[in-house]
């Protein structure tokens, strides 16, 4: 029973935070698709779903992209964080800290009383 709740809970959690993980990776430096996917190892359920997500972030104007020649290999689409994307990431980071601490406290309290 716990296992069932677990898998579903993990996928729900992932859904909520994944786009901010993308923003965080792009905050370091611009990346092309495969680089981005490699940096998100462990957070993605399937790598391909990053592309619809990037579409959403572009529509939100948190991320922009451009086609460019790479040093090695064919031209690639590079993704970069916009100023609005930086703001969104910062808001989330603050919110996440509060949320994480609150959840930790609740979980720890529960473990102790049990």
């Amino acid at each position: 029973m716990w296992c069932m709740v677990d898998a579903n809970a993990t996928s729900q959690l992932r859904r909520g935070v994944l786009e901010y993980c993308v923003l965080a990776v792009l905050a370091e430096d611009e990346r092309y698709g495969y680089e981005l996917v490699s940096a998100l190892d462990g957070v993605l359920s399937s790598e391909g779903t990053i592309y619809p997500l990037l579409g959403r972030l572009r529509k939100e104007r948190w991320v922009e992209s451009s086609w460019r020649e790479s040093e090695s290999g064919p031209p690639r689409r590079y993704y970069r964080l916009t100023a609005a994307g930086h703001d969104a990431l910062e808001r989330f980071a603050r919110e996440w800290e509060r949320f994480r601490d609150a959840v930790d406290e609740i979980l720890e309290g529960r473990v102790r009383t049990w």
Partner: protein
Amino acid sequence: MVTATRADELVRAYLRALRAATRELPRNERAELLAQIEEHLRDAIPSGAGEAEARTALERLGDPEEIVAEEIERLGIPRPRAGALEWTAIILLLLGGFLAGVGWVAGAVMLWSSRAWSMREKLIGTLLVPGGLGAAVFASLLLASDGIQTCGGIAGQPMHCTGGWSASHSVLIIAVLILLVLTPIATAVFLARHARAPRV
């Protein structure tokens, strides 16, 4: 030198499945998604990669249906579902033949007026088998009556029989009958599985 390796074949099969799965997406979004995945695969599977490497990369990339489901959700396209028209069409095509054939014709009209199926799917729905289960049963009865043996004769003499089929002929006819009955059922299942709601 161009030699298709096993890895190339796997990638090609994956892209075919992805193209099929993205049929419902708007043109621009579809082209964009396909270009991104192709670029991803060029990076994930370097030329000369082995079969195992390609297989792992494709597994990590994920099921095309899953990727498309994500895109559909992003674009806010309602999840495709067959409506009342489609279900009525499927049922009438299967069973409408029993209603003096008229039911089947109504089903065919609904099939062709619906946007839930492609041209190819509509042709399959119409031609396999015209009249549906009703026509299949009717044809079966006709064929079976043809195979009835009539025997007669005078007492004390060997019986004399006319009509009927040889054993090999009978096996063939029975196979055709079974096929006639199973095909409309298979077609109904096929139509149900391939129906998608027209895009709003």
